[in-house]
């Protein structure tokens, strides 16, 4: 220690500072503990612990390995049929989404035309729609009281509805295609749009005909993107729940639906747990495949800005093609949503707000103990709580991951997929895990209202993480140093540098979390409490009741939910800069 000599003038002595004090070091240490502790605890308690409980219940119900619960899965041909149905409907739905999505992706990635940005946003809309809204919208379009049947009846002067699609495989497939076409357009189109057209030009100079260029250049380069999109869509269809439950009726069951029925209707928990295990194995396998393909996608391909790859359609043929595909796409994607709004406002052939008014009346014969509109309040309350928690977990995991990337790159490769695991876990499985694990000590949350937002947070926080992380990665490390040298304490650096720079991405993540929470159905159905129904739960219950009034209220509520989601989603589209997000 060098003692200040006596010649040091007084004003300088006043500047003497202390070493970084013990409290200061504890604060830094405490920060690290918090950064690691909060997400780890949350993950441990609300993700791994419930999943472990499922595992235990199905395989070790009495402390040692018992395969009793697995036996019916193997012995009863019923479960084989469920699995077979799950696989083939997912395959068919994926094929349908590719059939419609690939031509649209080609058009979106090659041509510039007026209104493209809006159209692109609109085609993505179905994907963010809550599953109950999609299901209700398809009943409004194709159901026995649906818009299409109405039109056909009027046109051909029929007495009864000609289309009987409700509770058939067709309405399920259509809803799945509706849902997932936008995934194909977004993933494949996004990649295609940045593919260097000079590659094709180089092949042409070397003598390749247009068809050969397509076969030899475009297809092989595009294949990983198509495969990744197919796998993702397949996974969504494989774990489909709300659409099957509502549109398929009692005759159809995917593994996901079967988990719910076995657990809640038959109350056979060990078998439900065994089914969940099966489901987890499948989704995990699909996730691994998807991540693998994603890595292939990040091969160093010569990507070009979209301005260099796109042009307006020139010939009449091109214009006709663009117009035709877009019209088909628009009609297919918008008609269910339009039918939903139209039906919700129609009563006895005329325009009416009756169904909306009914939401404010607490009827004694209703399925609720409370005024239906209170479901809106519940949903909002849960969504706001979810946003708060998802931001906390999403931000801390983002910093955690970034820190690990900088210090222990290998470990980051491991941590990243672990943090994405909740995305690949089905919501019903998660909800089921909560029922069997969080309903008893040591962690009894059965009576707590928090259990619902906790489940929603697990589903929603990866979106906060994924929107914040690229910005965090892009930040110059010296920018914080520059602020610190200028006198900003670590807290001030975070508030004045990190936060403003992350603000937009954080907003995007928050809106995602909000809309996900508003629309979440599978986990909510299992863990929500009857006195506090959310919008999707209320809609599901109304749909399950006979009578036009109940159906009308389901429509009205779906419109409210759709509007909330649409506003949130269009907000995200405006907040995004360029294509900086990872999804």
């Amino acid at each position, binding site marked *: 220690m060098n003692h200040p000599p006596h010649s040091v003038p007084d004003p300088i002595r006043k500047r*003497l500072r202390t070493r970084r004090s013990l409290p200061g070091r504890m604060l830094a240490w405490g920060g690290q503990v918090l950064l690691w502790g909060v997400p780890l605890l949350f993950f441990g308690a609300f993700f791994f612990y419930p999943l472990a409980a499922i595992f235990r219940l199905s395989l070790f119900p009495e402390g040692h390995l018992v395969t009793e619960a697995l036996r019916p899965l193997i012995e009863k041909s019923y479960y084989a049929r469920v699995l077979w149905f799950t696989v083939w409907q997912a395959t068919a739905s994926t094929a349908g989404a590719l059939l419609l999505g690939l031509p649209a992706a080609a058009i979106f990635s090659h041509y510039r035309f007026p209104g493209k940005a809006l159209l692109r946003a609109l085609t993505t809309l179905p994907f963010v729609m809550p599953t109950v809204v999609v299901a209700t919208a398809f009943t409004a379009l194709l159901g026995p009281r649906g818009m299409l049947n109405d039109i056909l009846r009027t046109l051909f002067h029929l007495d009864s509805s000609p289309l009987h699609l409700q509770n058939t495989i067709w309405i399920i497939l259509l809803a799945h295609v509706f849902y997932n076409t936008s995934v194909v357009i977004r993933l494949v189109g996004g990649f295609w749009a940045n593919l260097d057209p000079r590659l094709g030009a180089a092949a042409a100079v070397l003598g390749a005909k247009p068809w050969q260029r397509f076969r030899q250049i475009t297809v092989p380069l595009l294949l990983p993107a198509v495969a990744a999109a197919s796998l993702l869509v397949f996974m969504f269809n494989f774990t489909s729940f709300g659409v099957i439950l509502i549109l398929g009726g009692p005759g159809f069951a995917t593994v996901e639906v079967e988990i719910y029925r076995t657990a809640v209707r038959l109350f056979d928990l060990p078998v439900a747990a065994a089914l969940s295990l099966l489901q987890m194995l499948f989704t995990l396998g699909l996730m691994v495949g998807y991540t693998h393909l994603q890595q292939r996608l990040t091969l160093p391909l010569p990507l070009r800005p979209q301005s260099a790859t796109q042009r307006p359609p020139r010939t009449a043929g091109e214009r006709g093609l663009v117009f035709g595909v877009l019209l088909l796409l628009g009609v297919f994607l918008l008609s269910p949503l339009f039918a939903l709004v139209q039906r919700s406002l129609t009563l006895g052939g005329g325009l009416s707000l009756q169904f909306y008014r009914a939401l404010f009346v607490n009827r004694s014969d209703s399925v609720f103990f409370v005024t239906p509109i209170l479901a809106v309040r519940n949903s909002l309350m849960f969504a706001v709580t979810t946003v708060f928690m998802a931001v906390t977990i999403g931000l801390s995991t983002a910093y955690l991951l970034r820190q690990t990337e900088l210090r222990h790159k290998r470990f980051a490769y491991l941590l990243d997929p672990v943090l994405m695991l909740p995305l690949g876990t089905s919501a019903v499985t998660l909800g089921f895990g909560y029922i069997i694990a969080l309903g008893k000590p040591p962690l009894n949350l059965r009576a707590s209202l928090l259990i619902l937002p906790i489940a929603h947070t697990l589903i929603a926080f990866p979106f906060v993480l994924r929107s914040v992380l690229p910005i965090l990665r892009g930040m*110059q490390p010296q*920018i914080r140093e520059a602020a610190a*040298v*200028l*006198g900003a304490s670590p807290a001030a650096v975070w508030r004045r540098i990190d936060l403003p720079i992350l603000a937009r991405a954080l907003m995007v993540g928050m809106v995602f979390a909000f809309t996900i929470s508003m629309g979440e159905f599978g986990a909510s159905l299992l863990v929500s409490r009857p006195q506090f129904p959310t919008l999707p739960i209320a809609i599901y219950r109304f749909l399950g009741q006979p009578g036009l009034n109940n159906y009308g209220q389901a429509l009205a509520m779906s419109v409210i939910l759709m509007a909330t989601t649409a506003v949130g989603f269009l907000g995200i589209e405006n907040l995004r800069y360029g294509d900086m997000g990872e999804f």
Partner: protein
Amino acid sequence: MVGSSPVPFLMANQITKAFADTPVLRGVDLTIAAGETVCLLGPSGCGKTTLLRVVAGLEPPDAGQVICEGEDVTHVPVHQREFGLMFQDYVLFPHMSVFDNIAFGLRMHRWSPQQIRQRVQELLTLVNLQHFGPRKVYELSGGQQQRVALVRSLAPKPRLLMLDEPLGSLDRELRDRLQDELRTLLGGLRQTTLYVTHDQWEAFAIADRIVLMNAGRVEQVGAADAIYLRPASLFVSRFLGFRNEFPARIMALNPAPALECLLGVLHPAELPPQSAVGDTVTVVIRPEAATLRYEACGNQLSLRLLDLSFRGAQTVWRLAAPGSEQVLEFYLPPQVHRPRIGDTVKVCVEPHGIIVFGG
């Protein structure tokens, strides 16, 4: 506070630092007097930026201490040191205007809004950017960004200003101009400054004193001309770009030192201490130490002209000793009558231009 106060403004004592077992600083000493501009000069990877970051408080040293105005600041967190630092690529805050960038440090030090407005305006005027306050930083040109970064680091009146390759990302012409501006500015403010660069000409132009570093150690400390005229080691000589380097043997110490080499006999002004007759040494001849002269002189060399390269104020002559591969390069003023390639020319070398390194 005048340059030679009894206690230097800043002292770094025996700083060591390693990154993942690779030593970057191996016991470095550094002193800076108040009001002085010290340049850390050296090739990339020599540890100069790490030393600067240790002084700034951005890296904790593995051993050693940093003492500022008599106070041990080794463990004082960076934001409490009241230093200024300008980064190589400026690192302006992209989400703030020019004004807010400059005002950032002032706000951190709780200046009043009135004072802040005044100070920022004063600084913008200083660098001729009076009307740029409301601009976004990404709307500025490279030179403008550089000036904003400079006054941002100057704004809170730092005790020590540090500049890390501040002209590194600019083109040559802009660099030369800003180099002079910077020198005038820092001199006018009597700002104590630590300046990091790998460019010797930049260091020569700006520094009061140069600390030349190599592989985590200080190789030589001194004024620019002192280092140029008397490089302390072969490393320094090579770093300065002296290419006329060849082996020799000491023939005589007294009355005048004499060396024997490929070129014949040379008489340097001095020899390394403790030299003995018969020692093998390395000789370096500075490129501007030769003149074309046909009358006899102490160090006259007859050389064959290999090549001439006209560079404006000077011409680079490439010459070779007869019957030898040893090539010499000399910078000479442009000549009206120049010899033809292959001719033999006679040059005289100034004794002080011959530097002898032992061993």
